[in-house]
């Protein structure tokens, strides 16, 4: 028992030390931002993210710094990551919309159902579905153990079934969107899409910094993507950052 307490104590202390370090780095990055050193601030936020921790505020500030440093595509990519942690953050959505408005040329637009589905994070929907799943089977088990309670639990069981079906549908859509529908964001000033996955292929369209493209496939260091205007082409991974579906 003492061993378990010791391990728990060490873990808690390590967590607090890590958080203290990150907070100090975060404050330093904020200071750089305040001094107008946006590129340095963006690098500082990026260094924190490289440690493997993330938070909506950290990603939000990183996106701001990237935007101020003139990197529209990287700002959108970071905002996307933040959106997956805090999809209902109004400030985040406002900044993402603002940066998207600065992007030139055709870009991808999320459909209404995607907007609706992505108002919850994948983990939130997963937990909600899990709670409903456990509750439903708990009710079913209770009805087996205490058959006399079955009439009283019928309404609750039916409600749990309906909610579980709805939640499961949203989870399925979210998961499908997350795992099978990637987005590529152009992170260079200009990216040339080509008809094949090689440098000598004919150019099909040009996407500007920050343009979001739906990824159709991959081949080595190339991604096949379609832009908001419906044009399809191959882009080098050096020109884009590929994100899970938004």
């Amino acid at each position, binding site marked *: 028992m003492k061993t378990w307490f010791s391990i728990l104590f060490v873990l808690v202390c390590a967590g607090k030390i890590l958080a203290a370090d990150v907070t100090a780095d975060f404050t330093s990055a904020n*200071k750089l931002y305040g001094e107008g050193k946006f590129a340095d601030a963006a690098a500082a936020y990026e260094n924190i993210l490289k440690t493997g921790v993330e938070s909506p505020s950290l990603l939000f500030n990183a996106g*701001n710094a990237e935007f*101020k440093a003139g990197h529209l595509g990287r700002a959108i990519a970071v905002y996307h990551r933040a959106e997956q942690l805090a999809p209902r953050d109004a400030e985040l959505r406002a900044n993402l919309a603002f940066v998207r408005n600065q992007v030139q040329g055709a870009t991808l637009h999320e459909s209404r159902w995607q907007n609706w589905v992505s108002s919850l994070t994948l*983990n939130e929907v997963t937990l909600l579905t899990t709670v409903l799943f456990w509750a*439903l*089977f708990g009710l079913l088990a209770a009805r087996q*153990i205490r058959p006399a309670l079955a009439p009283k639990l019928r309404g609750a069981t039916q409600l749990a079934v309906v909610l579980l079906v709805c939640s499961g549908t949203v*989870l399925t859509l979210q998961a499908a969107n*997350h795992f099978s529908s990637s987005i590529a964001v152009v992170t260079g000033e200009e990216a040339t899409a080509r008809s094949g996955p090689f440098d000598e292929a004919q150019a099909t369209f040009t996407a500007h910094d920050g343009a979001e493209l739906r990824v159709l496939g991959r081949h080595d260091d190339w991604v096949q993507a379609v832009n908001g205007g419906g044009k399809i082409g191959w882009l080098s991974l050096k020109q884009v950052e590929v994100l899970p579906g938004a």
Partner: protein
Amino acid sequence: MRFIPKIWYALVAVALLHGAALAASFTASLDRDSITTGESATLSLTFEGGTPRTVPTPGVSGLQINQVGNSQSYSIINGAMSATVTVTFSVTAQRPGEYTIPALTADVGGQQLSTEPLKLTVGKIAAPSAEAVNSGNEVAFLKFSCPKQKMYAGESVVAHLDLYLRDEVQNFGNFAVTGASADGFSLGKCVELPNQRHRAQVGNRVYTIIPYAVPVTAVKTGSFALGPFTASVIIVLPNGWMGEQRQVTLATDSANVESLPLPEDKPAGFSGAIGNFTMTATAGPTTVTVGDPITVRVKISGRGSFDSLALPAQDAWQNFKSYPPTTKIETGDQFGLQGTKTFEQIISPLNTDVHELPPLNFAYFNPDDGHYHTLKSGAVTLTVQPAGSTPMPALAANKPPALENQSPQDILPIKENLGALTQAGPPLVSRPVFLAAQAVPVLAFFAAFVWRKRTDNLANNPRLRRQRAVALLIASGMTDLKKYASANKPDEFFATLFRLLQEQLGERLDCPASAITENVLDGQAMLRAAPPAVRDGLHELFQLCNQARYAPVRGSSELNSVATQFEKVVNRLRELKS
């Protein structure tokens, strides 16, 4: 049938040979041999009996010759097929004179062929005299008028071309300006002024006047003749019920226009704007952080050349980073000389010492009064804070959802609090441990389900229930037997043994335990069919119980052996099918 293709091959071969045998030719022709300045003639180069390797392009000093099209045709005459290629050029002369289009040489079907030289006479077209106009002899004529005899270089005016058609002209069409002498000027597109046709009497005839306008911009300084303009129009004159169509070539007089240089006293910030303008300027947002963009909107309205209108560099904005402005022109007339040009420029303060956006200056030259003017906007007070320290706007803090419905000027500021940190990783739904945990409620449910089924099964089967109850009773009874044996209590031992025998046999025979005596061993079919060892064992146990009533004294070891014997018999008894 096999000979039919051969016949076709032979016919084609004959036709080709015949065609090849025809002499190729190359001719040049003009649709007319005299034109006036500004008018166009059509030069046709015709290649018959072959295709030219290259089409020669005639070049004559003083003539402008441009290819306008080509055509190809095939014909079979008396079995001879010939191909004809025709290339057409438009020929225009700006000056009157006699021109000769020289002989042209081309390689046609391997033959070097040449054309005959062509002569083209270009006459000077002149505007009809005042006497001719007033006499009413001119069925159509054109008048040119420039609103100004003195212009400044860069100034734009709208000149007028009035087409006069005598009252007998039933209709007209295809009016086109075919030429204009406008050295020192830049001409815009000639358009008819809408809803301004009218009639007027000239001499003793009534004419319909169709007003056209052409924007004119002086591009060089000096004295220049603007015009004459030449034009052509197709008119319809009364002749039978269909009328008679006639193409009429028209010319105007020229106007002497002096193009003046701009005065030397150019004000600072003058970028070549000529006209008469007003300016409004706005800037926002006014509360920003260092590096945040401020949008400056400048609207310049009035009359002048808007295409060349540019926002001058503002020297007073050295504390701002400026980005190239975007422009939008809203013209108020069809010539683009009146309207509003809106500049939208993004600037961002470089430091917190900036407290205002200095006044914006715009200088222009007004040709109407011949002076330069400078328009000045008011200074805009700014609040510039260090980046990162801007407090959350009240709107953002109180009504976050409304943010997306606004048209923001910049991104919202960074957040000061780090918030809850999480370890970056794959989503829960893809973690095996999480997925495995979801089996727990399912297994719990199935466990409850199985338990329920067994419970219900027991409840609905009294024999099974009794069987289990007796098994429990025997198990506890065995403990008691061993306890009594150890304590050497034969009375309690045999009383318990007898009761256990009754219970076990009663359960096996499905009858009340109290009804069990030694007699049932021979009375029940099941026991009669039981193995002799079981029957003998049961008999012996019953007899021991009976003997104990008369000779109760026994030792512990004997009682233990009886208990063991009872256990064996009970176990074998349970194996019997009831």
